[in-house]
């Protein structure tokens, strides 16, 4: 009943349901609908139709990835973010920037170890 109610209020959901009923691939249609909302919500623009199609395919892969993350991380909410049209490699290159350090441990530079602090009482 919640879905029916949402569909009644949201023309986008009605559109997806309608197309699905005609036998199109539900996953792709769902991704297209989500992508349209994503583009509008985050003010995204792409240089041409090819770029848009590529970003849609990346977005669809990220929807699957978000579902996978949701299963692996059930206490958080995972879904569409402003990074949903980026591949993991693009995301890493553009938005992460912590230099790699040996063995994953802190490259301390000239930092000293902090003295041990009391933690009880």
């Amino acid at each position, binding site marked *: 009943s919640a879905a029916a109610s949402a569909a009644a209020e949201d023309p986008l959901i009605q559109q997806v349901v309608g197309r699905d009923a005609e036998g199109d691939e539900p996953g792709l249609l769902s991704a297209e609908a989500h992508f349209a909302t994503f583009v509008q919500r985050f003010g995204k623009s792409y240089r041409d139709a090819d770029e848009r199609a590529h970003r849609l395919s990346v977005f669809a892969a990220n929807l699957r990835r978000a579902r996978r993350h949701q299963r692996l991380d059930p*206490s958080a909410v*995972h879904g569409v973010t*402003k990074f949903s049209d980026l591949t993991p490699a693009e995301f890493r290159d553009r*938005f992460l*920037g912590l230099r790699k350090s040996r063995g994953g441990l*802190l490259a301390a*530079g000239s930092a000293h170890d902090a003295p041990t*602090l*009391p933690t009880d009482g």
Partner: protein
Amino acid sequence: LPDDFDWRDKGAVGPVKDQGSCGSCWSFSTSGALEGANYLATGKLEVLSEQQMVDCDHECDPDEPRACDAGCNGGLMTTAFSYLAKAGGLETEKDYPYTGAGGTCKFDKSKIAAQVKNFSTVAVDEDQIAANLVKHGPLAIGINAVFMQTYIGGVSCPYICGKHQDHGVLLVGYGSAGYAPLRFKEKPYWIIKNSWGENWGESGYYKICRGAHAKNLCGVDAMVSTVTAIHTQKE
């Protein structure tokens, strides 16, 4: 140690910022830690510059001479603290605003608003991390950001997560009870300030599990550094 602690409630944390398409997370983590330390030293929150570090900090790790801070191409918080200690300090965001791209260094010593007194690394121990957080202010930490690309809210507690850190963020507090619905239990968590704007995560923040069954989750406990500030008076 208190059960719950949050530096945001105490006025030591500035607004959420947005690094844009630039791998400068390390500079935001560094500036956030010094903003908190400076608040503790002076009682005043100065929003500090990241662009100064992006443009001017080319400090290298003494143990890895080829690993140097490199603006949008990445850096490390401890080497940034080392740069700040040598350069004299950090200007305010207003005096040296963020552009999201590297440029020529325009550092003006006369505009220094916060100075590093000392910095150190914290042991891989949740109690020590919490104690240093409470005593010295927000901590610069590294994290594996693989689950952050799709994160919207809640307490992140993935069953598996890489431990190699690839993102610099700021630890600002912790809570004792974030509800994990599918595990039917309350989970303690860290509160982390990110630099991807307010429209990411929980108004720019990320919560990640801590505690006995979530030690060093996503490498969050293994790259922690603390800084203290000198009480400076801006002219």
